Protein backbone atom coordinates (compact mmCIF):
# COMPACT_ATOMS: atom_id res chain seq x y z
CA UNK A 1 0.00 0.00 0.00
CA UNK A 2 2.74 2.36 1.08
CA UNK A 3 4.88 1.33 -1.88
CA UNK A 4 1.92 1.81 -4.18
CA UNK A 5 1.14 5.35 -3.07
CA UNK A 6 4.82 6.22 -3.26
CA UNK A 7 4.86 4.93 -6.82
CA UNK A 8 1.81 6.99 -7.76
CA UNK A 9 3.50 10.03 -6.24
CA UNK A 10 6.67 9.35 -8.22
CA UNK A 11 4.96 8.83 -11.57
CA UNK A 12 2.54 11.70 -10.93
CA UNK A 13 5.38 14.05 -10.02
CA UNK A 14 7.35 13.15 -13.12
CA UNK A 15 4.23 13.50 -15.25
CA UNK A 16 3.38 16.98 -13.95
CA UNK A 17 6.99 18.11 -14.26
CA UNK A 18 7.18 16.75 -17.80
CA UNK A 19 3.98 18.52 -18.86
CA UNK A 20 5.11 21.81 -17.37
CA UNK A 21 8.76 21.66 -18.43
CA UNK A 22 8.44 23.42 -21.82
CA UNK A 23 6.94 26.45 -20.08
CA UNK A 24 9.27 26.30 -17.08
CA UNK A 25 12.33 26.40 -19.30
CA UNK A 26 11.17 28.16 -22.44
CA UNK A 27 14.70 28.72 -23.74
CA UNK A 28 15.48 24.99 -23.70
CA UNK A 29 12.48 23.53 -25.51
CA UNK A 30 14.46 21.82 -28.27
CA UNK A 31 16.95 20.42 -25.76
CA UNK A 32 14.06 19.14 -23.66
CA UNK A 33 12.58 17.40 -26.68
CA UNK A 34 15.98 15.81 -27.26
CA UNK A 35 16.04 14.68 -23.64
CA UNK A 36 13.13 12.36 -24.41
CA UNK A 37 14.92 11.18 -27.57
CA UNK A 38 17.94 10.31 -25.43
CA UNK A 39 15.79 8.42 -22.92
CA UNK A 40 14.20 6.48 -25.79
CA UNK A 41 17.60 5.63 -27.24
CA UNK A 42 18.83 4.36 -23.88
CA UNK A 43 15.64 2.42 -23.10
CA UNK A 44 15.51 0.64 -26.44
CA UNK A 45 19.23 -0.20 -26.34
CA UNK A 46 18.94 -1.56 -22.83
CA UNK A 47 16.24 -4.04 -23.80
CA UNK A 48 18.77 -5.99 -25.87
CA UNK A 49 22.11 -4.75 -24.52
CA UNK A 50 21.25 -4.68 -20.83
CA UNK A 51 18.30 -6.92 -20.04
CA UNK A 52 19.34 -9.59 -22.53
CA UNK A 53 23.09 -9.03 -22.29
CA UNK A 54 23.63 -8.77 -26.04
CA UNK A 55 25.62 -5.56 -26.39
CA UNK A 56 24.62 -4.28 -29.80
CA UNK A 57 26.68 -1.58 -31.49
CA UNK A 58 24.38 -1.51 -34.47
CA UNK A 59 21.03 -0.42 -33.03
CA UNK A 60 21.56 2.96 -34.67
CA UNK A 61 20.55 1.20 -37.91
CA UNK A 62 16.92 1.12 -36.77
CA UNK A 63 17.06 4.78 -35.78
CA UNK A 64 18.25 5.67 -39.28
CA UNK A 65 15.80 3.36 -41.01
CA UNK A 66 12.93 5.05 -39.18
CA UNK A 67 14.29 8.44 -40.04
CA UNK A 68 14.71 7.74 -43.76
CA UNK A 69 11.43 5.83 -44.10
CA UNK A 70 9.47 8.66 -42.56
CA UNK A 71 11.19 11.26 -44.72
CA UNK A 72 10.70 9.21 -47.90
CA UNK A 73 7.00 8.61 -47.21
CA UNK A 74 6.49 12.28 -46.41
CA UNK A 75 8.16 13.15 -49.71
CA UNK A 76 6.46 10.56 -51.92
CA UNK A 77 3.06 11.35 -50.50
CA UNK A 78 3.15 15.00 -51.40
CA UNK A 79 5.74 15.60 -54.11
CA UNK A 80 7.12 14.16 -57.29
CA UNK A 81 10.68 13.02 -56.99
CA UNK A 82 12.16 15.86 -59.10
CA UNK A 83 9.90 18.51 -57.72
CA UNK A 84 10.94 17.65 -54.17
CA UNK A 85 14.42 19.13 -54.30
CA UNK A 86 13.02 22.52 -55.13
CA UNK A 87 10.02 22.72 -52.84
CA UNK A 88 11.05 20.88 -49.72
CA UNK A 89 12.61 23.91 -48.16
CA UNK A 90 9.90 26.35 -49.27
CA UNK A 91 7.79 28.01 -46.64
CA UNK A 92 4.15 26.88 -46.42
CA UNK A 93 4.86 23.97 -48.72
CA UNK A 94 2.65 21.59 -46.69
CA UNK A 95 -0.58 22.10 -44.82
CA UNK A 96 -0.86 20.87 -41.22
CA UNK A 97 -3.02 17.93 -42.28
CA UNK A 98 -0.64 16.85 -45.03
CA UNK A 99 2.34 17.18 -42.70
CA UNK A 100 0.73 15.09 -39.97
CA UNK A 101 -0.46 12.40 -42.39
CA UNK A 102 3.01 12.09 -43.85
CA UNK A 103 4.65 12.01 -40.44
CA UNK A 104 2.24 9.47 -38.98
CA UNK A 105 2.20 7.18 -41.99
CA UNK A 106 5.95 7.52 -42.38
CA UNK A 107 6.65 6.56 -38.78
CA UNK A 108 4.31 3.56 -39.07
CA UNK A 109 5.97 2.35 -42.26
CA UNK A 110 9.39 2.98 -40.74
CA UNK A 111 8.50 0.92 -37.68
CA UNK A 112 7.36 -2.00 -39.84
CA UNK A 113 10.48 -1.72 -41.99
CA UNK A 114 12.72 -1.71 -38.93
CA UNK A 115 11.00 -4.77 -37.47
CA UNK A 116 11.40 -6.63 -40.77
CA UNK A 117 15.09 -5.70 -40.90
CA UNK A 118 15.57 -6.73 -37.27
CA UNK A 119 13.89 -10.03 -38.06
CA UNK A 120 16.16 -10.69 -41.04
CA UNK A 121 19.30 -9.59 -39.22
CA UNK A 122 18.21 -11.62 -36.21
CA UNK A 123 17.85 -14.74 -38.32
CA UNK A 124 21.24 -14.08 -39.93
CA UNK A 125 23.18 -13.17 -36.77
CA UNK A 126 21.34 -14.47 -33.70
CA UNK A 127 20.05 -17.72 -35.13
CA UNK A 128 23.61 -18.46 -36.28
CA UNK A 129 24.54 -18.53 -32.61
CA UNK A 130 26.62 -15.35 -32.42
CA UNK A 131 27.18 -14.51 -28.79
CA UNK A 132 28.97 -11.97 -26.63
CA UNK A 133 31.77 -10.05 -28.34
CA UNK A 134 31.09 -11.78 -31.67
CA UNK A 135 27.58 -10.42 -31.73
CA UNK A 136 28.92 -6.97 -30.84
CA UNK A 137 31.43 -6.99 -33.69
CA UNK A 138 28.82 -8.23 -36.17
CA UNK A 139 26.48 -5.40 -35.25
CA UNK A 140 29.29 -2.85 -35.33
CA UNK A 141 29.53 -3.49 -39.06
CA UNK A 142 25.79 -2.95 -39.55
CA UNK A 143 25.79 0.73 -38.65
CA UNK A 144 28.79 1.43 -40.87
CA UNK A 145 27.31 -0.51 -43.78
CA UNK A 146 23.92 1.22 -43.45
CA UNK A 147 25.60 4.64 -43.51
CA UNK A 148 27.56 3.68 -46.64
CA UNK A 149 24.47 2.39 -48.42
CA UNK A 150 22.49 5.54 -47.63
CA UNK A 151 25.42 7.72 -48.76
CA UNK A 152 25.43 6.08 -52.14
CA UNK A 153 21.72 5.75 -52.79
CA UNK A 154 20.32 8.50 -55.05
CA UNK A 155 16.71 7.72 -54.12
CA UNK A 156 17.31 8.92 -50.56
CA UNK A 157 19.49 11.85 -51.54
CA UNK A 158 22.81 9.96 -51.35
CA UNK A 159 25.61 11.88 -49.65
CA UNK A 160 23.77 15.18 -49.59
CA UNK A 161 21.01 13.70 -47.46
CA UNK A 162 17.35 14.64 -47.24
CA UNK A 163 15.52 17.72 -46.04
CA UNK A 164 12.19 17.29 -44.28
CA UNK A 165 9.35 19.71 -45.12
CA UNK A 166 9.13 22.98 -43.28
CA UNK A 167 7.06 22.71 -40.12
CA UNK A 168 3.56 24.13 -40.87
CA UNK A 169 2.58 27.20 -38.88
CA UNK A 170 -0.81 25.78 -38.03
CA UNK A 171 0.72 23.26 -35.64
CA UNK A 172 2.17 25.82 -33.26
CA UNK A 173 5.76 25.79 -32.15
CA UNK A 174 7.89 23.05 -33.63
CA UNK A 175 9.86 22.31 -30.44
CA UNK A 176 6.70 21.98 -28.33
CA UNK A 177 5.02 19.77 -30.92
CA UNK A 178 7.95 17.36 -30.98
CA UNK A 179 8.44 17.63 -27.24
CA UNK A 180 5.02 16.11 -26.72
CA UNK A 181 5.45 13.52 -29.47
CA UNK A 182 8.61 12.25 -27.79
CA UNK A 183 7.11 12.52 -24.33
CA UNK A 184 4.16 10.41 -25.43
CA UNK A 185 6.44 7.90 -27.19
CA UNK A 186 8.61 7.62 -24.07
CA UNK A 187 5.60 6.96 -21.87
CA UNK A 188 4.30 4.26 -24.22
CA UNK A 189 7.74 2.66 -24.53
CA UNK A 190 8.35 2.75 -20.79
CA UNK A 191 4.97 1.19 -19.96
CA UNK A 192 5.43 -1.49 -22.63
CA UNK A 193 8.89 -2.40 -21.39
CA UNK A 194 7.77 -2.36 -17.77
CA UNK A 195 5.01 -4.80 -18.64
CA UNK A 196 7.33 -7.01 -20.69
CA UNK A 197 10.00 -7.14 -17.98
CA UNK A 198 7.44 -8.18 -15.37
CA UNK A 199 6.30 -11.24 -17.31
CA UNK A 200 7.75 -14.35 -18.84
CA UNK A 201 9.49 -12.45 -21.62
CA UNK A 202 11.51 -10.31 -19.20
CA UNK A 203 12.63 -13.25 -17.10
CA UNK A 204 13.62 -15.27 -20.14
CA UNK A 205 15.80 -12.52 -21.62
CA UNK A 206 17.37 -12.04 -18.17
CA UNK A 207 18.02 -15.78 -18.07
CA UNK A 208 19.69 -15.55 -21.49
CA UNK A 209 21.90 -12.78 -20.12
CA UNK A 210 22.88 -14.76 -17.01
CA UNK A 211 23.38 -18.23 -18.51
CA UNK A 212 22.24 -18.98 -22.02
CA UNK A 213 23.46 -22.60 -21.94
CA UNK A 214 21.34 -23.23 -18.87
CA UNK A 215 18.31 -21.62 -20.49
CA UNK A 216 18.66 -23.95 -23.47
CA UNK A 217 19.18 -26.94 -21.22
CA UNK A 218 15.90 -26.02 -19.52
CA UNK A 219 14.08 -26.16 -22.84
CA UNK A 220 13.76 -22.44 -23.54
CA UNK A 221 13.83 -21.62 -27.25
CA UNK A 222 16.27 -18.81 -26.75
CA UNK A 223 16.65 -17.81 -30.41
CA UNK A 224 12.98 -16.87 -30.67
CA UNK A 225 13.20 -14.69 -27.62
CA UNK A 226 16.40 -13.04 -28.77
CA UNK A 227 15.00 -12.15 -32.18
CA UNK A 228 11.72 -10.93 -30.69
CA UNK A 229 13.57 -8.72 -28.23
CA UNK A 230 15.57 -7.17 -31.03
CA UNK A 231 12.39 -6.56 -33.03
CA UNK A 232 10.69 -4.81 -30.09
CA UNK A 233 13.77 -2.65 -29.62
CA UNK A 234 13.87 -1.86 -33.35
CA UNK A 235 10.17 -0.96 -33.38
CA UNK A 236 10.41 1.78 -30.76
CA UNK A 237 13.80 2.97 -31.95
CA UNK A 238 12.49 3.40 -35.48
CA UNK A 239 9.53 5.47 -34.25
CA UNK A 240 12.01 7.63 -32.36
CA UNK A 241 14.17 8.05 -35.43
CA UNK A 242 11.20 8.91 -37.62
CA UNK A 243 10.15 11.84 -35.46
CA UNK A 244 13.75 12.85 -34.69
CA UNK A 245 14.45 13.30 -38.41
CA UNK A 246 11.59 15.75 -38.66
CA UNK A 247 12.72 17.58 -35.53
CA UNK A 248 16.28 17.97 -36.80
CA UNK A 249 15.01 18.80 -40.28
CA UNK A 250 18.06 17.64 -42.16
CA UNK A 251 18.98 13.98 -42.56
CA UNK A 252 22.65 13.39 -43.22
CA UNK A 253 23.40 9.71 -43.85
CA UNK A 254 26.34 9.38 -41.45
CA UNK A 255 26.10 12.43 -39.19
CA UNK A 256 22.41 12.23 -38.30
CA UNK A 257 20.69 9.04 -39.41
CA UNK A 258 23.35 6.35 -38.98
CA UNK A 259 25.36 8.40 -36.50
CA UNK A 260 27.33 5.60 -34.90
CA UNK A 261 29.96 7.74 -33.14
CA UNK A 262 27.37 10.01 -31.54
CA UNK A 263 23.85 8.62 -30.97
CA UNK A 264 25.04 5.06 -31.52
CA UNK A 265 27.64 5.27 -28.75
CA UNK A 266 25.65 7.55 -26.49
CA UNK A 267 22.74 5.13 -26.24
CA UNK A 268 25.13 2.54 -24.83
CA UNK A 269 26.85 4.96 -22.47
CA UNK A 270 23.59 6.30 -21.10
CA UNK A 271 22.30 2.83 -20.33
CA UNK A 272 25.60 1.87 -18.67
CA UNK A 273 25.76 5.12 -16.69
CA UNK A 274 22.29 4.66 -15.26
CA UNK A 275 22.63 0.91 -14.80
CA UNK A 276 22.06 -1.53 -17.63
CA UNK A 277 19.53 -4.25 -17.11
CA UNK A 278 17.32 -2.12 -14.88
CA UNK A 279 14.09 -0.38 -15.83
CA UNK A 280 15.01 3.05 -14.46
CA UNK A 281 18.73 2.93 -15.14
CA UNK A 282 18.56 4.03 -18.80
CA UNK A 283 16.15 6.84 -17.92
CA UNK A 284 18.38 8.21 -15.15
CA UNK A 285 21.50 7.70 -17.27
CA UNK A 286 20.01 9.56 -20.21
CA UNK A 287 18.97 12.53 -18.07
CA UNK A 288 22.38 12.84 -16.43
CA UNK A 289 24.21 12.35 -19.70
CA UNK A 290 22.13 14.85 -21.65
CA UNK A 291 22.30 17.53 -18.97
CA UNK A 292 26.05 17.03 -18.54
CA UNK A 293 26.58 17.20 -22.26
CA UNK A 294 24.62 20.43 -22.59
CA UNK A 295 26.48 21.95 -19.65
CA UNK A 296 29.84 21.04 -21.17
CA UNK A 297 28.71 22.52 -24.46
CA UNK A 298 27.72 25.78 -22.80
CA UNK A 299 30.51 26.30 -20.30
CA UNK A 300 33.46 24.39 -21.73
CA UNK A 301 33.02 25.28 -25.37
CA UNK A 302 36.05 24.21 -27.34
CA UNK A 303 36.83 21.54 -24.75
CA UNK A 304 33.38 19.98 -24.69
CA UNK A 305 34.48 16.82 -26.52
CA UNK A 306 37.44 16.34 -24.19
CA UNK A 307 35.25 16.86 -21.14
CA UNK A 308 32.69 14.42 -22.52
CA UNK A 309 35.43 11.85 -23.15
CA UNK A 310 36.76 12.24 -19.61
CA UNK A 311 33.22 11.95 -18.27
CA UNK A 312 32.71 8.69 -20.19
CA UNK A 313 35.96 7.24 -18.82
CA UNK A 314 34.91 8.24 -15.32
CA UNK A 315 31.53 6.53 -15.79
CA UNK A 316 33.06 3.25 -16.82
CA UNK A 317 35.77 3.32 -14.13
CA UNK A 318 33.69 4.38 -11.14
CA UNK A 319 30.27 3.01 -12.01
CA UNK A 320 30.82 -0.16 -14.02
CA UNK A 321 27.42 -1.36 -12.79
CA UNK A 322 25.80 2.02 -13.34
CA UNK A 323 24.06 4.12 -10.73
CA UNK A 324 21.15 1.72 -10.29
CA UNK A 325 23.49 -1.28 -10.15
CA UNK A 326 25.60 0.51 -7.56
CA UNK A 327 22.54 1.38 -5.50
CA UNK A 328 21.32 -2.21 -5.73
CA UNK A 329 24.64 -3.49 -4.37
CA UNK A 330 24.56 -0.91 -1.62
CA UNK A 331 20.97 -1.29 -0.44
CA UNK A 332 19.82 -4.71 -1.63
CA UNK A 333 16.79 -4.72 0.73
CA UNK A 334 15.39 -1.59 -0.93
CA UNK A 335 15.30 -3.51 -4.20
CA UNK A 336 13.51 -6.44 -2.65
CA UNK A 337 16.52 -8.73 -2.13
CA UNK A 338 16.11 -9.79 1.46
CA UNK A 339 16.15 -12.88 3.65
CA UNK A 340 13.10 -13.71 5.67
CA UNK A 341 14.68 -14.04 9.12
CA UNK A 342 11.61 -15.48 10.78
CA UNK A 343 11.21 -18.23 8.21
CA UNK A 344 14.95 -18.80 8.32
CA UNK A 345 14.81 -19.57 12.03
CA UNK A 346 12.07 -22.13 11.35
CA UNK A 347 14.02 -23.97 8.68
CA UNK A 348 16.60 -26.39 10.04
CA UNK A 349 19.73 -26.31 7.94
CA UNK A 350 18.54 -23.28 5.99
CA UNK A 351 21.85 -21.64 6.76
CA UNK A 352 25.36 -22.72 5.92
CA UNK A 353 24.78 -25.20 3.13
Amino acid at each position, binding site marked *: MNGNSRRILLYGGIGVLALAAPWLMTAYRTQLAFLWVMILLALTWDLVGGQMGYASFGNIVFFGVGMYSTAVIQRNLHYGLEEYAHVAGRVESLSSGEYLTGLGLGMAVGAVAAVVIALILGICILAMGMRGPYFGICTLGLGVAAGEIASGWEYVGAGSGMVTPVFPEGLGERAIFFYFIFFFLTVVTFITLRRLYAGRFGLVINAIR*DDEDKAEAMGIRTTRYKITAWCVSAFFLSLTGGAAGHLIGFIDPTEVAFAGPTFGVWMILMAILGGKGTLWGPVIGAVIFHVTQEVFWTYLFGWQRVALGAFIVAIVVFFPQGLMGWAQDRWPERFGHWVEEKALADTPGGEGA
Partner: protein
Amino acid sequence: MNDIQLSVEGVSKRFGGVVANDKITLNVPRGRIVGLIGPNGSGKTTLFNSIVGYHPIDEGSIRFEEHEISRKRVVEIARLGMIRTFQQTHIYGKMTCMENMKVSVPRNGAGVARMFARFSPDVVEKSESLLEFVGLYPKRYLLAGDLSFGQQKLLEFAMALMNEPKMLLLDEPTAGINPTLINGLMERLQRANADLGITLFVIEHNMRVIMNLAETIYCLAHGELLSFGTPEEIQQDQTVIDAYLGAH
Protein backbone atom coordinates in the same frame (compact mmCIF):
# COMPACT_ATOMS: atom_id res chain seq x y z
CA MET B 1 12.18 -53.69 -15.87
CA ASN B 2 11.08 -53.97 -19.47
CA ASP B 3 9.88 -50.40 -19.72
CA ILE B 4 13.06 -48.78 -21.03
CA GLN B 5 12.81 -44.97 -21.00
CA LEU B 6 16.30 -44.12 -22.17
CA SER B 7 18.37 -46.46 -24.26
CA VAL B 8 21.92 -45.74 -25.32
CA GLU B 9 23.28 -48.10 -27.96
CA GLY B 10 26.85 -48.27 -29.14
CA VAL B 11 27.51 -44.59 -28.61
CA SER B 12 31.01 -43.34 -29.37
CA LYS B 13 32.42 -39.85 -29.01
CA ARG B 14 35.93 -38.80 -29.98
CA PHE B 15 37.65 -35.48 -29.37
CA GLY B 16 40.47 -35.48 -31.89
CA GLY B 17 42.51 -38.55 -31.00
CA VAL B 18 40.94 -39.04 -27.60
CA VAL B 19 38.15 -41.59 -27.42
CA ALA B 20 35.94 -40.23 -24.62
CA ASN B 21 33.16 -42.75 -25.11
CA ASP B 22 33.73 -46.07 -26.86
CA LYS B 23 30.60 -47.97 -27.93
CA ILE B 24 28.69 -47.42 -24.71
CA THR B 25 25.43 -49.32 -24.37
CA LEU B 26 23.14 -48.87 -21.39
CA ASN B 27 19.47 -48.66 -20.46
CA VAL B 28 17.57 -46.58 -17.95
CA PRO B 29 14.17 -48.06 -17.02
CA ARG B 30 11.25 -45.74 -16.32
CA GLY B 31 10.73 -44.62 -12.76
CA ARG B 32 14.03 -46.01 -11.44
CA ILE B 33 17.22 -44.51 -10.08
CA VAL B 34 20.27 -45.47 -12.08
CA GLY B 35 23.84 -44.54 -11.16
CA LEU B 36 26.85 -43.84 -13.35
CA ILE B 37 30.26 -44.04 -11.73
CA GLY B 38 33.85 -44.18 -12.85
CA PRO B 39 37.23 -42.60 -12.12
CA ASN B 40 37.94 -39.03 -13.21
CA GLY B 41 38.19 -38.72 -16.96
CA SER B 42 36.35 -41.94 -17.64
CA GLY B 43 33.78 -40.19 -19.88
CA LYS B 44 30.75 -39.84 -17.63
CA THR B 45 30.05 -36.19 -18.29
CA THR B 46 30.80 -36.67 -21.99
CA LEU B 47 28.13 -39.35 -22.09
CA PHE B 48 25.67 -36.99 -20.39
CA ASN B 49 26.52 -34.27 -22.88
CA SER B 50 25.98 -36.70 -25.75
CA ILE B 51 22.59 -37.77 -24.41
CA VAL B 52 21.26 -34.24 -23.94
CA GLY B 53 22.47 -33.15 -27.36
CA TYR B 54 25.23 -30.81 -26.22
CA HIS B 55 27.50 -32.18 -28.94
CA PRO B 56 26.92 -34.57 -31.84
CA ILE B 57 27.95 -38.19 -31.37
CA ASP B 58 30.22 -40.05 -33.80
CA GLU B 59 28.25 -43.28 -33.88
CA GLY B 60 25.45 -45.11 -32.17
CA SER B 61 21.86 -44.40 -31.30
CA ILE B 62 20.15 -42.74 -28.34
CA ARG B 63 16.43 -43.24 -27.81
CA PHE B 64 14.31 -41.42 -25.24
CA GLU B 65 10.84 -42.91 -25.00
CA GLU B 66 9.72 -43.23 -28.63
CA HIS B 67 12.09 -40.54 -29.97
CA GLU B 68 15.47 -41.00 -31.58
CA ILE B 69 17.31 -38.06 -30.02
CA SER B 70 20.90 -38.50 -31.17
CA ARG B 71 20.39 -35.88 -33.90
CA LYS B 72 18.22 -33.50 -31.88
CA ARG B 73 19.40 -30.27 -30.30
CA VAL B 74 19.61 -29.40 -26.61
CA VAL B 75 16.41 -27.35 -26.49
CA GLU B 76 14.28 -29.93 -28.27
CA ILE B 77 15.55 -32.77 -26.08
CA ALA B 78 14.86 -30.74 -22.94
CA ARG B 79 11.32 -30.10 -24.20
CA LEU B 80 10.74 -33.84 -24.47
CA GLY B 81 11.08 -33.93 -20.70
CA MET B 82 14.72 -34.79 -20.14
CA ILE B 83 16.48 -32.18 -18.02
CA ARG B 84 20.10 -32.23 -16.90
CA THR B 85 21.86 -30.42 -14.10
CA PHE B 86 25.50 -29.42 -14.31
CA GLN B 87 28.57 -30.42 -12.36
CA GLN B 88 29.44 -26.74 -11.97
CA THR B 89 26.22 -25.02 -10.99
CA HIS B 90 24.38 -23.19 -13.71
CA ILE B 91 21.86 -20.76 -12.26
CA TYR B 92 20.77 -17.27 -13.29
CA GLY B 93 22.97 -15.28 -10.93
CA LYS B 94 21.51 -11.79 -11.31
CA MET B 95 17.95 -12.97 -10.78
CA THR B 96 16.25 -13.80 -7.50
CA CYS B 97 15.58 -17.40 -6.53
CA MET B 98 11.88 -16.89 -7.24
CA GLU B 99 12.66 -15.55 -10.72
CA ASN B 100 14.96 -18.51 -11.31
CA MET B 101 12.06 -20.78 -10.47
CA LYS B 102 9.38 -18.94 -12.43
CA VAL B 103 11.42 -18.88 -15.62
CA SER B 104 11.83 -22.66 -15.36
CA VAL B 105 8.19 -23.53 -16.02
CA PRO B 106 7.98 -26.33 -18.57
CA ARG B 107 7.83 -25.75 -22.31
CA ASN B 108 8.36 -22.08 -21.74
CA GLY B 109 6.66 -19.82 -24.25
CA ALA B 110 5.30 -22.02 -27.01
CA GLY B 111 3.61 -19.21 -28.93
CA VAL B 112 3.77 -15.44 -29.06
CA ALA B 113 0.89 -15.10 -26.62
CA ARG B 114 2.65 -17.28 -24.04
CA MET B 115 5.86 -15.43 -24.65
CA PHE B 116 4.40 -12.16 -23.38
CA ALA B 117 2.13 -13.69 -20.73
CA ARG B 118 2.25 -12.87 -17.05
CA PHE B 119 2.89 -15.55 -14.46
CA SER B 120 -0.18 -17.18 -13.01
CA PRO B 121 -0.59 -17.47 -9.22
CA ASP B 122 -0.15 -21.24 -9.65
CA VAL B 123 3.38 -20.73 -10.91
CA VAL B 124 4.22 -18.49 -7.96
CA GLU B 125 2.73 -20.96 -5.53
CA LYS B 126 4.57 -23.90 -7.05
CA SER B 127 7.84 -21.97 -7.06
CA GLU B 128 7.44 -21.23 -3.38
CA SER B 129 6.56 -24.78 -2.44
CA LEU B 130 9.52 -26.20 -4.35
CA LEU B 131 11.88 -23.70 -2.73
CA GLU B 132 10.41 -24.80 0.58
CA PHE B 133 11.10 -28.41 -0.47
CA VAL B 134 14.84 -27.72 -0.89
CA GLY B 135 14.99 -25.41 2.15
CA LEU B 136 15.57 -22.16 0.29
CA TYR B 137 12.21 -20.54 1.00
CA PRO B 138 13.55 -17.87 3.40
CA LYS B 139 16.06 -16.81 0.74
CA ARG B 140 13.62 -16.70 -2.12
CA TYR B 141 14.12 -12.98 -2.75
CA LEU B 142 17.92 -13.13 -2.69
CA LEU B 143 19.89 -13.00 -5.92
CA ALA B 144 20.79 -16.55 -6.85
CA GLY B 145 24.39 -15.47 -7.42
CA ASP B 146 24.67 -14.49 -3.74
CA LEU B 147 23.85 -18.01 -2.53
CA SER B 148 26.60 -20.41 -1.46
CA PHE B 149 27.70 -23.10 -3.88
CA GLY B 150 25.72 -25.77 -2.06
CA GLN B 151 22.59 -23.65 -2.02
CA GLN B 152 22.97 -22.98 -5.72
CA LYS B 153 23.03 -26.74 -6.30
CA LEU B 154 19.81 -27.07 -4.33
CA LEU B 155 18.29 -24.23 -6.32
CA GLU B 156 19.32 -25.88 -9.56
CA PHE B 157 17.66 -29.09 -8.40
CA ALA B 158 14.47 -27.19 -7.53
CA MET B 159 14.53 -25.50 -10.94
CA ALA B 160 14.81 -28.89 -12.61
CA LEU B 161 11.78 -30.13 -10.64
CA MET B 162 9.87 -26.97 -11.61
CA ASN B 163 10.29 -28.03 -15.22
CA GLU B 164 8.29 -31.22 -14.50
CA PRO B 165 10.78 -33.50 -16.24
CA LYS B 166 10.16 -37.15 -16.96
CA MET B 167 13.82 -37.88 -16.43
CA LEU B 168 16.53 -36.00 -14.59
CA LEU B 169 20.20 -36.36 -15.43
CA LEU B 170 22.13 -35.22 -12.38
CA ASP B 171 25.84 -34.58 -12.70
CA GLU B 172 27.35 -34.99 -9.23
CA PRO B 173 24.44 -33.59 -7.24
CA THR B 174 26.22 -33.81 -3.89
CA ALA B 175 29.65 -32.47 -4.90
CA GLY B 176 30.48 -29.38 -2.86
CA ILE B 177 27.56 -29.80 -0.50
CA ASN B 178 28.04 -29.72 3.26
CA PRO B 179 28.11 -33.39 4.47
CA THR B 180 25.29 -32.76 6.94
CA LEU B 181 23.05 -31.66 4.08
CA ILE B 182 23.87 -34.61 1.84
CA ASN B 183 21.43 -36.86 3.69
CA GLY B 184 18.71 -34.27 3.25
CA LEU B 185 19.45 -33.98 -0.44
CA MET B 186 19.44 -37.75 -0.89
CA GLU B 187 16.09 -37.96 0.81
CA ARG B 188 14.76 -35.25 -1.50
CA LEU B 189 16.08 -37.06 -4.55
CA GLN B 190 14.34 -40.23 -3.41
CA ARG B 191 11.12 -38.35 -2.78
CA ALA B 192 11.25 -36.74 -6.22
CA ASN B 193 11.63 -40.22 -7.64
CA ALA B 194 8.98 -41.91 -5.51
CA ASP B 195 6.35 -39.15 -5.24
CA LEU B 196 6.74 -37.41 -8.59
CA GLY B 197 7.73 -40.48 -10.58
CA ILE B 198 10.80 -38.84 -12.06
CA THR B 199 13.43 -41.22 -13.39
CA LEU B 200 16.88 -40.31 -12.08
CA PHE B 201 20.14 -40.95 -13.87
CA VAL B 202 22.93 -39.86 -11.56
CA ILE B 203 26.67 -39.36 -11.91
CA GLU B 204 28.20 -39.49 -8.47
CA HIS B 205 31.66 -39.81 -6.92
CA ASN B 206 30.45 -40.19 -3.37
CA MET B 207 30.17 -43.99 -3.02
CA ARG B 208 28.05 -43.87 0.11
CA VAL B 209 25.50 -41.75 -1.72
CA ILE B 210 25.32 -43.71 -4.95
CA MET B 211 25.30 -47.12 -3.28
CA ASN B 212 22.32 -46.07 -1.15
CA LEU B 213 20.51 -44.23 -3.88
CA ALA B 214 20.75 -46.27 -7.05
CA GLU B 215 19.16 -49.58 -7.88
CA THR B 216 21.40 -50.20 -10.86
CA ILE B 217 24.89 -48.81 -11.38
CA TYR B 218 26.94 -48.55 -14.54
CA CYS B 219 30.69 -48.11 -14.22
CA LEU B 220 32.82 -46.47 -16.90
CA ALA B 221 36.61 -46.51 -17.21
CA HIS B 222 38.74 -45.07 -20.00
CA GLY B 223 35.64 -44.34 -22.03
CA GLU B 224 34.43 -47.95 -21.99
CA LEU B 225 31.62 -49.56 -20.10
CA LEU B 226 33.41 -51.66 -17.50
CA SER B 227 30.61 -53.25 -15.56
CA PHE B 228 27.04 -52.90 -14.41
CA GLY B 229 24.80 -54.38 -11.77
CA THR B 230 23.25 -53.78 -8.39
CA PRO B 231 25.28 -51.81 -5.84
CA GLU B 232 26.30 -55.07 -4.15
CA GLU B 233 27.53 -56.58 -7.39
CA ILE B 234 29.46 -53.44 -8.28
CA GLN B 235 31.11 -53.32 -4.85
CA GLN B 236 32.37 -56.86 -5.29
CA ASP B 237 33.40 -56.51 -8.92
CA GLN B 238 37.19 -56.84 -9.10
CA THR B 239 37.46 -54.89 -12.38
CA VAL B 240 35.70 -51.91 -10.80
CA ILE B 241 37.97 -52.00 -7.76
CA ASP B 242 41.01 -52.23 -10.05
CA ALA B 243 39.82 -49.29 -12.13
CA TYR B 244 39.47 -47.12 -9.07
CA LEU B 245 42.74 -48.20 -7.50
CA GLY B 246 44.64 -48.05 -10.75
CA ALA B 247 45.63 -51.71 -11.19
CA HIS B 248 46.17 -52.73 -14.77
